[in-house]
């Protein structure tokens, strides 16, 4: 059977999904829309069922892009995803509003199961629901009670699915119910009014409410967490803690992954028979995959924390206290999470903007998200800082290198806010933004749900970024391996002769030959072609090559320099590369990598959109190439001007 899972937000819908399908879930697409279709296959007594998770909605009528799919599928029995059975998850402690969506679906006469979830919370709130009476009222459906967070009621639910005993012929809840057109707002208002009157009558018959406490625990916590002073202090504290933790712990697995891939590709290079395909494998594909995998620890850790905050209900409070501050910048409280995510990686950040219902606020968030310093910038920053910033203490206790790193992050953040404010003035939209957000009651996070969220985000990152980074690394490998008619071979030969005359070791000889070949390759030629353009920033053609190659992904910059300067990569610290770069002199005898050109490069990387994968995701999310091009354009202008100013001042 094809089963659709629907329900209001914050009803524990995903807990029900996880309870039924476990980890066997996949992501697909609904035809024609960008919303991910999360589905899972499970079987009850050898019969296989597909469970499709729909976005959480309060009504079948769409109020945001995300929600459109619910209406599209349910209103059209010929839709490929039209379900044989609908499971509607309802929060038992808040039946009135939850029954609204359920009765709408009930009235469509699609076979349904009503899951009264969060039974424990309902008890705590002192609410008792007469399920028998409820079942009698909805004779065309099956009512089941669960507490999915702790796996209670799974048997009841699977039995209900197995029997699928809901009737086909029954009286609709709302007499003369009919489905309105999406544009028919008046009709929808009329329906909402009538439906709620009927629901309220029903609630009075089936629900007993006793000894409701004066002030709930959530309310007391809110006095602190949304407090004008403590609220912000606590949020800042949590952010600092999260990033501190990520930087302290992600480096170990990252260094490990780095060295595993470096060793593997050199092992491949030494073991495989010499040839183009071996080269492609050891120098193109394997390092390409490594460049994707290395970011997984950071992304996993960040989403681990974000999903804990989300599960606990705190994230909604962050939206609540940040909304007023973000609005003058053209952003909304809901922009905070996407921008936070972008500190790990802009790809999940851009995808997280889907919760922003206002088009303009969402666009601005997407456009400025890549200005937040993502994890791919860290290898570039650390290399350049180690290269040109002295390891000294300022004021006796602040490490200067650390201070510069912090400054780069701050520059990214501040400029993203300024750009947002400018975009707000430039972009006009007909609709006015709004915020209608439920503040769910606080609850302890479920580790299973946290784990599944982390797994999903990592998967999405690996697939969407991975494909592109891999493809580009193959293209770049080809551009670095081939050159116009035989020039590369000539250069390689003369380098070989020179190396032999100097009696260098074999590995040193090989690296010098590789470097000479690169200079004559297509990519070397390209680097030289753009040299006049980047000279005012303090860069030479070798840096030019690295800028071009790192257009695929920023961290490629480091690996490219290592190849160009014929230095063997040594994983994390890059000591050899730094030594070599410090020695590099210009024709006038001054070092290429001095304070001015180094800082200029750092600023360039703060601003430039050096990430094909993000561009592709922005294209996917905005459904046109217009926005990614605008984004790339203004970021390039910022990068060039910023780097130019830095170089001119410091040199």
């Amino acid at each position, binding site marked *: 059977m094809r089963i659709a899972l629907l329900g209001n937000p914050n009803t524990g819908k995903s807990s029900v999904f996880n309870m039924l399908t476990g980890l066997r879930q996949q992501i697909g697409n609904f035809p024609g829309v960008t919303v991910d279709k999360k589905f899972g296959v499970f079987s009850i007594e050898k019969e296989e069922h597909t469970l499709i998770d729909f976005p959480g909605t*309060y009504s079948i*009528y769409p109020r945001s892009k995300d929600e459109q799919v619910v209406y599209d599928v349910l209103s059209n029995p010929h839709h490929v995803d039209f379900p044989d059975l609908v499971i509607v998850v309802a929060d038992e402690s808040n039946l009135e509003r939850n029954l609204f969506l359920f009765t709408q679906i009930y009235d469509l006469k699609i076979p349904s199961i009503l899951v009264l979830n969060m039974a424990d919370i309902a008890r705590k709130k002192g609410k008792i629901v007469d399920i028998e009476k409820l079942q009698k009222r909805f004779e065309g459906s099956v009512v089941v009670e669960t507490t999915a967070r702790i796996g209670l009621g799974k048997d009841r639910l699977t039995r209900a699915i197995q029997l699928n005993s809901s009737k086909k012929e029954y009286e609709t809840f709302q007499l003369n119910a009919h489905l309105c057109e999406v544009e028919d707002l008046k009709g929808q*208002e009329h329906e*909402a009014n009538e439906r709620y009157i009927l629901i309220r009558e029903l609630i009075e018959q089936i629900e007993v409410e006793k000894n409701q406490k004066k002030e709930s625990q959530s309310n007391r916590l*809110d006095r602190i967490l949304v407090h004008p002073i403590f609220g912000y202090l606590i949020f800042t504290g949590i952010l600092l803690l999260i990033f501190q933790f990520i930087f302290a712990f992600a480096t170990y697995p990252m260094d490990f992954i780095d060295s595993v891939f470096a060793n593997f590709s050199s092992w491949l290079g030494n073991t495989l028979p010499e040839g183009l395909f071996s080269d492609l494998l050891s120098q193109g594909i394997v390092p390409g995959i490594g460049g994707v995998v290395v970011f997984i620890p950071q992304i996993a850790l960040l989403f681990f924390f974000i999903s804990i905050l989300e599960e606990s209900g705190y994230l909604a409070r962050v939206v609540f206290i940040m909304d*007023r501050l973000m609005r003058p910048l053209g952003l909304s409280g809901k922009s905070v999470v996407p921008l936070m995510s972008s500190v790990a990686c802009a790809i999940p950040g851009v995808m997280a903007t889907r919760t922003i219902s206002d088009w303009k606020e969402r666009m601005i968030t997407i456009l400025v998200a890549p200005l937040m310093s993502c994890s791919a910038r860290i290898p570039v920053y650390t290399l350049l800082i180690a290269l040109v910033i002295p390891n000294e203490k300022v004021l006796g206790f602040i490490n200067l290198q650390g201070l510069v790193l912090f400054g780069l992050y701050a520059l990214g953040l501040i400029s993203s806010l300024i750009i947002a404010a400018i975009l707000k003035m430039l972009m006009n939209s007909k609709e006015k933004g709004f915020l209608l957000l439920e*503040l769910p009651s606080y609850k302890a996070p479920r580790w299973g749900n946290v784990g599944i969220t982390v797994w999903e985000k990592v998967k999405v990152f690996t697939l969407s970024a991975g494909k592109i980074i891999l493809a580009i690394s193959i293209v770049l490998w080809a551009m670095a391996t081939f050159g116009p008619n035989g020039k590369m071979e000539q250069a390689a030969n003369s380098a070989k002769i020179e190396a032999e005359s100097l009696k260098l070791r074999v590995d040193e000889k090989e690296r010098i030959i590789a470097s000479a070949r690169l200079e004559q390759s297509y990519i070397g030629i390209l680097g030289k072609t753009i040299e006049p353009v980047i000279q005012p920033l303090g860069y030479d053609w070798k840096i030019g090559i690295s800028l071009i190659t790192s257009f695929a992904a920023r961290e490629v910059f480091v690996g490219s320099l290592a190849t160009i300067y014929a230095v063997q990569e040594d994983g994390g610290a890059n000591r050899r590369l730094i030594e070599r770069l410090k020695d590099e002199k210009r024709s006038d005898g001054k070092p290429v990598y001095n304070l001015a050109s180094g800082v200029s490069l750092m600023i360039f990387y703060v601003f430039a959109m050096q990430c094909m994968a993000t561009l592709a995701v922005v294209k996917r999310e905005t459904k046109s190439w217009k926005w990614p091009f605008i984004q790339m354009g203004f970021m390039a202008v910022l990068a060039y001007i910023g780097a130019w100013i830095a170089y001119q001042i410091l040199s």
Partner: protein
Amino acid sequence: MSKSLSSIIPGQLVKVSFIKDSALKPKLMEMGLIIGKELRVLFKAPFGDPIAIDVHGYVLSLRLDEASLIEVEDSK
């Protein structure tokens, strides 16, 4: 006497008397804000905006702009 929800101070219990026409009106109604519904303003965000209200069973936050679409009267 009817006033705007945006002017209600925290702690007060009120009843929805009217919702102004706007594209948001059906959405507000679907969230449970229909005429006669009892609401309590719980607290406001720093800077007084957005506000959080108890819609009998759940807490809804909305900006003052949205709140001003909702007319309320004192609830007895």
